[in-house]
């Protein structure tokens, strides 16, 4: 999605879902953050690709 939209997306979801700023999101909260990003990712990428992306992020973060 590019750096601008990615930052914006994380900001929106962290504020709405976790009620905190992106910098304050803890490692344990990342799955919830990814869950919150799900609908947007599914809209733009389709379900399979959005799930792969979320899985890849979890893998890379060791979650």
């Amino acid at each position, binding site marked *: 999605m590019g750096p601008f939209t990615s930052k914006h997306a994380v900001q929106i979801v962290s504020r709405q879902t976790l009620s905190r700023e992106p910098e304050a999101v803890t490692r344990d909260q990342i799955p919830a953050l990814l869950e919150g990003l799900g609908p947007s990712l599914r809209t*733009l990428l389709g379900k399979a690709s959005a799930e792969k992306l979320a899985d890849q992020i979890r893998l890379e973060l060791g979650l």
Partner: protein
Amino acid sequence: MTADDFDSTINVRARKQRPLIRLLLLIPFVSGAIVACGILMPDATAGLFYRGALVIAALLTAVSALVTSSAFEKGQKLFAAWSALGIGYALAAIRHSMRLWTLLLGGGITNRAVLDTLLVLQNVLVALALWWFVRAWQTSGLAAPMSRRTQLTWIFLGIAVAIVVGGYPLIQGFHTAGTDAVLLVSTAGDMIGIALIVPLITPALAMRGGLLMHTWLALATSEVFWLLYDVWVGTKGMTGLAPSSATVVEQILRIIAVMFAFVATVAHRRSRL
């Protein structure tokens, strides 16, 4: 490790895809260059050549769009958008094939009502597709909020350009609605596409640096070339160019417009994991 040290495999993949996508962007211009060869042919042969090129371009775009749509579930806006684009260009391929058949072999389906119906459906579907692309972005939850004033400014600007470009043929269509109802629908479809250029560029700008940017950018560029095509068709008589030269410009613009739609379909698949 900070975020700046972390280079995910996703970023690595994105970097690898960028040169491929940049190559994709050359395809429409290469297609235009191929079509330009028609200027070297006798008129009758050039007519067949242009028609054949259009059939191939429309068919490629249709198939690619439908393949891209398969990644989405029914009910999703991008499923509808890619499907509508695919079916629209499939109808264009069928229509141009019918004309090509008639030119090559004579006979075939020459019924005006059939050809006009295909044209009308094509225009409606492509316009709908573009609308759904815009709505998909707007409802994704990612569109940065814009002030109402800015939104309205862009909307009116888009409509103004569409009216300037499409107004004259649309008025002509109204006056001769009996014989030019198809011109009316075709022009209206073009005007919708033109009015959506800015709403298509907005997500591309928002996603700059990302792979998805290229999809919306290619769709917007396709509409820009349809805009140039409409302007050319409306003004070519005033250029003083020989008919064959004017025709080749028209055909180049048209094929580039279609092939940018094709590029959008491929770019979207390349941006997915």
